[in-house]
């Protein structure tokens, strides 16, 4: 092992020995047998052999070591439980009016108080949390999927002749076009028409205006991967492009996609809240955290502090998990010990 670039260990040599018949290949066989070329045997009681970790196991350990990951996971789990259980056990619904107690602070009957229209804030916050969670997670998954498809296809075809370059250029210009108009204006245009059908339309709508930046990054990453030797080799072996993408390209960018999906949850929740706040998001038969915030009253802080705090806790917990995940995957960060 004089060559420092040769990272094969003694295990590889043993394997080579097993698969090499000395009679069939005398040169290689004798080289493996030559005692001078062997590494010195390690003494029995030296450092214990380190078990080799798989990549997933390594990431899991690094992720679980981070304190912020735990805080994020616990807060997120608590919020999910609250969103599921809260509306089940609470005596008021999000649209039940208690006008006698309008604009009163937190009490034993109204845990977070009542707003000026006599609507119970706790009931609305919990119902809004449900909707925001569903929209956040759904939008993030759909956004990543769209970005993955567009980004990989654009990156993969950009080297494939004139038409590939043309298609790639068209896709890049489409992405730029979406970045010129503030997406909130387009969301405001589409949203009222779709809200009449179902509140779930919010998910594809938000995803439709959120995939561009991720797609750009994935395109750049794919372009680099397409030039690697194993992808070239797969191509010369005549492997179907779709199999090449799923086998050789997606596993290499999967970590990035996971981080982006996690952080996309919080971005989607923030977008939905803003849109609902100005009245273009979730509408009457449903409540979202943005609609709850809409009933704010500066002279009565309890009308907006509870929903804002729940929203902040939700977004912060998701962001904490996402950043811990990024740290776990980043070899240059401090947590890159085993």
């Amino acid at each position, binding site marked *: 092992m004089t060559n420092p670039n040769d990272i094969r260990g003694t295990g590889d040599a043993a394997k080579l020995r097993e698969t090499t018949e000395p009679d069939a290949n005398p040169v290689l066989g004798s080289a493996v047998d030559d005692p001078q070329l062997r590494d010195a045997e390690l003494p029995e009681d030296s450092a214990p052999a380190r078990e080799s970790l798989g990549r997933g196991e390594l990431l899991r350990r690094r992720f679980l070591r981070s304190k912020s990951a735990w805080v994020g996971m616990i807060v997120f789990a608590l919020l999910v439980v609250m969103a599921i259980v809260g509306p089940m056990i609470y005596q008021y619904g999000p649209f039940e009016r208690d006008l006698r107690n309008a604009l009163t602070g937190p009490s034993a009957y109204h845990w977070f108080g009542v707003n000026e229209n006599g609507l119970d804030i706790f009931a609305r916050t919990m119902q809004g949390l449900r909707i925001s969670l569903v929209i956040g997670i759904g939008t993030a998954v759909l956004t990543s999927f769209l970005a993955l498809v567009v980004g990989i296809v654009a990156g993969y075809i950009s080297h494939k002749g004139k038409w590939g370059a043309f298609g790639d250029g068209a896709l890049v210009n489409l992405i730029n076009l979406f970045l010129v108009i*503030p997406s909130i*204006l387009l969301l405001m245009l589409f949203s009222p028409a779709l809200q009449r059908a179902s509140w779930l339309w919010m998910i594809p709508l938000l995803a439709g205006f959120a995939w561009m930046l991720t797609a750009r990054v994935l395109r750049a990453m794919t372009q680099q991967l397409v030039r690697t030797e194993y992808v070239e080799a797969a191509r010369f072996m005549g492997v179907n492009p779709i199999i090449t993408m799923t086998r050789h390209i997606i596993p290499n960018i999967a970590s990035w996609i996971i981080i982006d999906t996690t952080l996309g949850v919080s971005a989607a929740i923030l977008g939905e809240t803003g849109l609902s706040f*100005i009245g273009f998001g979730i509408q009457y038969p449903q409540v979202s955290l943005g609609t709850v915030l809409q009933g704010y009253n500066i002279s009565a802080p309890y009308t907006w502090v509870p929903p*804002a705090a729940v929203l*902040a806790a939700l977004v912060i917990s998701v962001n904490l998990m996402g950043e811990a995940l990024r740290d776990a995957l980043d070899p240059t960060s401090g947590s890159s010990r085993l």
Partner: protein
Amino acid sequence: MIRFVSLRVLTYAILAFVATSFAYLLAASLMHPEEVLYPPIATEPLPPATAQMYLDVRNVNPDTPLFERYATWLGGLVRGDLGVTTGTNKSMTPVIDELGTRIPISLRLVVLGTVIGTSLGILLGMIAAVRRDSLGDRASTLLAFFVLSLPTPVIILIVQQINQGVMDTTGWGLPAINPINPLLEPGSWESFTYQVKALIMPTIVLALTAAASYSRYMKVTTLDVLGSDYLRTARAKGLTRGRAMNRHGLRMALIPMGQYFAFAVGGAFSGSLFVELMFNWQGIGRFAISAIQMADVNGTAGVVLYSAILTLLSATFADFLQGALDPRIR
């Protein structure tokens, strides 16, 4: 340099034109300004000829093919005429006049917020990267994390609530709503100071959101620069840390920031939407919300045109900045 910038400007102009056309076609096909003529909005029936006239003069007649309406609108655009307000707004104000009175109100907010926010963010990000793991780094990173985790309405509410608290305890506070006080004589010193005071809180909100994202980007790029070979060379030839950073590091760290600047203005536009709504400013953001609510096709297209021009100008400015900073482009 000239060639580079003019080519970029041409691309931006084409993008802005395509974006505005796209928005007009979308608005014209999704909105129904003619609903104002029928129940439940209209209380008594209108003779058909009058109804046709009403719709034609506003260029929103659904019987005219979409592309003919678009061509009419485009013809007006070439002459600098953006049509008149439509939908439930029956006053038929020319959109260009409406934008003209509102742009000064919005623009000071967007420009001040972006400039203060980006410079503050760049400064904070640089300090955080150079003094890594110091108290200042931790505080600014944590603050940026919190600001980015809150939607703009909540940030506005926090700022307004703090102001309200100060006003309740000391009796002195900033005006919470309206950019100008109609009771004060326009042009007088009181009116001017009122306008400045009214500008403070909205600017804080926009600057805070811009600074939060900028300080993060800037920290990352500065950390990249700090680990680079040329900075080590600069130190090796005898420059002090500060001089090496100022002469060689800062310039390289700022180059990628230029590209984010174009998006920062778009972000400030979205932010100003909430600010104008919650501080009751009669600016473009408010107009955008009401135009879309009132099915005002021409008004919506006008707002999109304004925002596209804003993005175009800021992207051009970013390119100039990049050309000035990056010797490889010149």
